[in-house]
Structures are given as C-alpha cells and as structure tokens.
C-alpha cells in the first residue's frame, strides 16, 4: 500500500520558497485550508507531477509546465521548480525528486526545460528503467483518478452508466486496472501464446519421427493456419476498437453539432425549395410572357366588338337609306328602277305614306355603305381572343413565387447566421463519416465472427490430431505435449477466473459502495442501496426497488465517492486519497456526511478545502480524533503562498 509521508515544493505554482507538508502515518485525515488561488490545486498537482511528470488544468487537460513556474521568481529571472515526495510502499521507504529546470536563460515554452527524476528506494537510487518500472507498479498513471481528484473529475463517473461512452469505457478500464484484472487478462494472453508455441513445438517434434510424421505435419499445418486466423482476428479486433473509438468521437461531435445538424437540415431544405421556386418562377414567367405577347388582342376585344356592332348598324342604316331614296325616286318618277316597272297611282299613294314614316329613321350617309362594309371587313381580320383569365392566373402564381423566394432568402440568411459558428461542410462530412463508420463496423464484426468460427474449427482439428498423436507419440513428444497441456489448462483457468473475479468484485464493490453511500446520503429513509452494472456504473435504488434515474450533480458526487471508497477497500492497489474541494455541488448535510465518512474511504485522506466550504470548527467536530493534522495556506502576496501547520 502506498502512503505519503512528506511533500516539499519549491518554485511550484504560488510556492516560491520551499514549503513542506508532513503527512501523519497513522490512519486518518489531513486537512489543508486555503482560499481560492492560494495553491490547493497546486498541491494536488505537485503530487501528480512528482509521480507522472504532468500537471492538469481545468477539464483534466494537461497544462504546460512552463506556466507552473512561480511568477514572482520568474519576474526575477528564476525559472523552474522542484517537487520532492517521500512515501512508503509496502513497508519500503522511497524518496522521489522531480525537477523541471530551464535549459535557457529565459525559457518561453516547455521545450526550453529539462526534467530530472530521481527515485531512491531505501539508500539506493534506481536506474532509469528500474525507476520507471517501480513507479508504474507503485502508482500507475491510468488509476490516478481514484486517488487524486476534484469535483470536475467526480462528475465524469456518471459516464459509467452510459454504455457506449468512451469516457465511461476509459474509467471502467481504469477500475479494472486498479482491481487487478490486467493480471488475469495478461496471464491468459501470455499462457495462450505459450501453449500455442508449445503446440507448434509438439507438431514439429512429431513431424521428425516417421511413425508420427504425417500427424505431425498435419498438426503443424493446421496450427499455422490457426495462427494466421488468430493474427487476422487480432488485427480485426484492433480495427474494431479503433472504429468504436472513431464512432464514439464522431457521436460526440454529432451530439455537440446536434443543434447545428438540424439547422443545416433546414437550410438545405430551404435552399432546395428556393431552387425549385426559382425554376418554377422561370417557367411561369415564360408562360406569362408568351401570354402577354397576345394580350393586346384581349385588350381590344371589347373595342372591336363595339366597333363591329357600330359598323353593322351603319351598314344596316345605310342600306335602309338607300332603299328609302329608291322609293322616293319611284314616287317622284312613277317608275321603279329596281324592278323596272311603272307604279300605279294607288301604289304611289301607299309608298308616299310609308316613306314619310321611314324618313325619320334614315342614317346620315357619311361614309356610304361601302365605308361601313369596309370597316366590317377590316374588323373581321382581327383575331379575337381573351386570355385575361390566363394572364391573371399566371401573374398571381408569379407573385406568390416571388413572395416565397423572398421569404426563403430571409430564412436562409437567418439559418446561415445561426450556423456562423459552425462549419456546415464539416457537419455534412461528419454525418457521412458516421454512416461510413457504422457500415465498416458491421463488416468488421462479420469478419470477426468468421475468423472466430474458423479458429474454432481449426482448434477442433488440432485437438483431434493431438489425441491421435498422444496415442502414437514418443517420450520426447509426450513431454512437449504435457508442457503444452499444462499451459493450455492454465490459460483456460485464467480465462474463467476473469469472469469469476469480475463478478465477485462487482458484488463486493457494490456492497461496500452501498454501505458508504448510506453513510453519506441524506435520504436514508428512501434510498436502499446502490446497484452496479457491467461497466461499474452505480445506480441508486429506492426501497421500493425502483432506480433513481434523475440524479443531481451532488448525488453524482456522493455516488462517485462511494465508488472510490469501495475500490479502495476491495482493490489490491491501495493508497491515499487526495481530494481538492470536492463539496462544490453538495449541500451542508451531505458535506457533513461525506466528511464523517472520509476515514472509512481510505487509510490516508488528504482534504484540500476553503473555509467557506467547511470551517475549522465544523471540520474538527465532524472528524474528531480522525483529524490528524491541519495546515493553512497563507497569503504572502498575490503570487506567493506559505504553508503553515495549525497547532
């Protein structure tokens, strides 16, 4: 188990001068108080830097080491920093010194620094390779999140409940790491590799002897074929892993682009509609223009009709006038020129009376009959038509389309403005990529199935051949076969042990996490326990058995802390918990419960808080005798802090 003993920082963050924290060695809690910007996170980072050579900023993003140098010292031209950490690991004393020193007079970037590391075990300094192996064994970086954390990191644990989340997968893998599962997984892999090699040796051995040559050669061949399938399977599995990572990444991008994706869809639809509207407008305009070429005729229809009627009346009037004048002549002459007959006195008298009545009706003979007839003839040349209805309809449609295009252009402009911060081409290509990746995953999965089936078939052939060989084989061959069998059996044991161990662990982690959760929650009446899923995600269960689906950030932190404590209790890898202001999302009661539970979570707990979160009096009351030591981070200036033990 890892136990911190002493931390010294110099030139690191606000700690310009060397500052020391001595950690008590008995089980309990050390509290370090400091206001904002006084260096609480820097202390957490100093421990991280000592072990891993890295420093994290907000969002768990690595920070440039150049920015860690104390700014007061930097202003004096003194750059770089040193962290010294003394610790105990499984009864052995260690001293770890990591220094970041400038290579140039005025460094401006990380490349201007060199890093020196020294790890002393007892009295001996370890060589570089041994040092790295030792550090990886003592405190693997991939599990640091369970020992060094803040509220931001705690929030990530809810990803464990999301099956396909890449963050959730990373955390699950880290949990399995801390629980020791890689030992079994690597053991299985190595034993498998070794027994396959032993099988190949056995096959080679068999092929050297006449009585077993055929069997041996067949076994070698099948073994080689199986090996080829296995290599292909491994390649495909790696490919699938890459594709799943790509898929998760694209899904994340799509999710963050979700809003933009629907805007883009609307934009594309609007553009398509605009194009269609413009096209339709073009053809409607063409039809209107064709109609308007003849519209002049429609305009004159009524005028021509009126003129025709007038001309017809003229013709009629003039014909009447002509007949009248002929009758008047006949009355005067007593002779009709039309029928060339003399008229009797009686007829002349009758004509006189009718002529006087008709005189009033005569039309002024202005143009003569031939004029009116000529007008009628001219008017008949006019191609009468009425396309006003058609023009009306076409123009109405054109106007509607013009309105629509204006509206669409406005809509498009608005949508483009909404998309201003995004990259529409990237959105489109992200969607296309997603589709491609899904398809490729499906192809690779099918190929994996085929390879697994082929490997299974080869395996069966191998077993058949081996049985035959065993019956027929020489003492040398038998020895090789015994070796291979032992390795194979061991690989099978490890393979089954993985599932057994995982399921045992889940039961134990769930039980411990539930116990810790019940200590920390304020809903002791309603909440019964936590249940764990395959990926170590924890769900809160009510007493009625239902799951608590909607969890606040505060509840998330409490569950995450319960998981951390449970891992500490059940993992082979144990060490101190150093937490930086983890109470941000918790109310007062939860905060009190968590503090009271801290000693249950790990043997050595270091808590970095500011007094507004939890005051000294309250802390002492909550922890009682489990509070072993207190420190205060005192402000010397805005750029300098000193560490003082509170006695």
């Amino acid at each position: 188990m890892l136990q911190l003993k002493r931390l010294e920082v110099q030139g690191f963050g606000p700690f310009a001068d060397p500052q020391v924290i001595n950690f008590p060695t008995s089980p309990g809690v050390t509290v370090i108080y400091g206001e904002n910007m006084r260096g609480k996170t820097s202390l957490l980072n100093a421990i991280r830097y000592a072990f891993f050579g890295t420093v994290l900023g907000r969002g768990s993003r690595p920070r440039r080491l150049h920015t860690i140098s104390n700014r007061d010292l930097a202003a004096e031209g003194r750059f770089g920093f040193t962290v010294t950490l003394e610790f105990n690991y499984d009864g052995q004393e260690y001293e770890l010194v990591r220094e970041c020193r400038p290579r140039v007079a005025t460094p401006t970037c990380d490349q201007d620094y060199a890093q020196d590391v020294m790890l002393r075990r007892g009295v001996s300094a370890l060589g570089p390779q041994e040092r790295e192996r030792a550090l990886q064994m003592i405190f693997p970086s991939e599990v640091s999140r369970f020992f060094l954390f803040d509220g931001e990191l705690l929030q990530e644990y809810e990803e464990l409940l999301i099956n396909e989340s890449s963050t959730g997968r990373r955390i699950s893998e880290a949990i399995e790491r801390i629980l020791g599962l890689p030992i079994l997984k690597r053991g299985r892999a190595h034993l498998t590799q070794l027994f396959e090699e032993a099988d190949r040796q056995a096959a080679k051995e068999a092929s050297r002897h006449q009585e077993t040559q055929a069997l041996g050669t067949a076994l070698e061949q099948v073994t080689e074929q199986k090996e080829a399938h296995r290599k292909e399977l491994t390649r495909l599995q790696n490919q699938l892993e890459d594709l799943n990572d790509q898929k998760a990444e694209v899904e994340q991008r799509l999710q963050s682009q979700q809003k933009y994706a629907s805007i883009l869809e609307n934009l594309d639809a609007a553009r398509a509609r605009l194009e269609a509207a413009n096209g339709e407008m073009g053809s409607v305009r063409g039809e209107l223009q064709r109609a308007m070429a003849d519209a002049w005729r429609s305009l004159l229809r009524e005028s021509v009709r009126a003129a025709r009627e007038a001309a017809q009346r003229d013709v009629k009037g003039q014909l009447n006038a002509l007949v009248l004048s002929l009758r008047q002549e006949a009355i005067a002459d007593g002779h009709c020129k039309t029928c060339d007959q003399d008229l009797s006195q009686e007829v002349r008298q009758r004509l006189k009376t009718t002529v006087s009545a008709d005189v009033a009706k005569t039309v002024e003979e202005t143009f003569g009959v031939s004029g009116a007839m000529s007008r009628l003839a001219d008017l008949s040349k006019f191609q009468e038509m009425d396309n006003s209805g058609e023009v009306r309809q076409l123009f109405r449609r054109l106007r509607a389309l013009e309105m629509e295009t204006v509206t669409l252009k406005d809509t498009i402009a608005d949508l483009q403005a909404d998309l201003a911060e995004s990259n529409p081409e990237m959105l489109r290509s992200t969607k296309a990529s997603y589709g491609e990746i899904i398809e490729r995953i499906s192809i690779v999965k099918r190929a994996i199935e085929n390879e697994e089936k082929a490997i299974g078939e080869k395996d069966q052939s191998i077993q058949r051949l081996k049985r035959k060989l065993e019956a027929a084989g020489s003492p040398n061959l038998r020895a090789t076969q015994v070796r291979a069998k032992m390795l194979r059996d061991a690989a099978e044991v490890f393979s089954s042990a993985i599932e057994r161990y995982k399921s045992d662990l889940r039961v134990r982690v769930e039980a411990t996490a539930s116990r810790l959760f019940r200590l920390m929650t304020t809903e002791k009446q309603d909440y019964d326990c936590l249940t764990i899923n395959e990926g170590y995600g924890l769900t809160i269960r009510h007493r009625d058995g239902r799951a608590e689906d909607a969890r606040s950030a505060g509840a998330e932190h409490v569950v995450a802390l319960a998981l951390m404590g449970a891992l500490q209790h059940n993992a082979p890898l144990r060490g101190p918990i150093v937490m930086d202001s983890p109470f941000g999302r918790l109310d007062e009661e939860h905060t009190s419960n968590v503090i009271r539970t801290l000693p249950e979570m790990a043997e050595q707990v270091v808590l970095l808080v500011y007094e507004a979160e939890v005051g000294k009096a309250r802390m002492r009351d909550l922890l009682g005798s489990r509070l072993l030591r207190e420190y205060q981070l005192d402000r010397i200036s805005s750029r300098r802090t000193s560490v003082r033990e509170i006695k």
Partner: protein
Amino acid sequence: MRTTDLSDLLKAVESIRSEMHPDLSRSFLEAVVAAEEANPEDDDGAMKAIEAALNAALRSDGGA
C-alpha cells in the same frame, strides 16, 4: 503490490482450478500471477518468468 493484496484474485483462480483442472499445479498458477504482478508492462519479462515457473512445476511433477 504484494501477493497478500492479491488474495481475492488468487482465491478466484484457485476456485476455478479446483473445479476445472484439479490436477493442474496450484503453485504454478500462483507463480503466473506473481510473474504478471512483477512485470505489468513487460511481455517478455512476464513470459520468461512464466516459462521458468512452468519448468519448475514440470520438474517437481516429474515431467520433462
């Protein structure tokens, strides 16, 4: 990590061994666990240690 810390892991391995392959050497399996613990990032180192344990187990069993 010390082997005492791996007791739960070893328990799981032992329970499977006794169910599936009771003739398989228990100490060999423990040695495999120890080899993996001591070589977390070193495939060659782990496999060499496993082979050494295998040879020892075969010798003690009277094997080749």
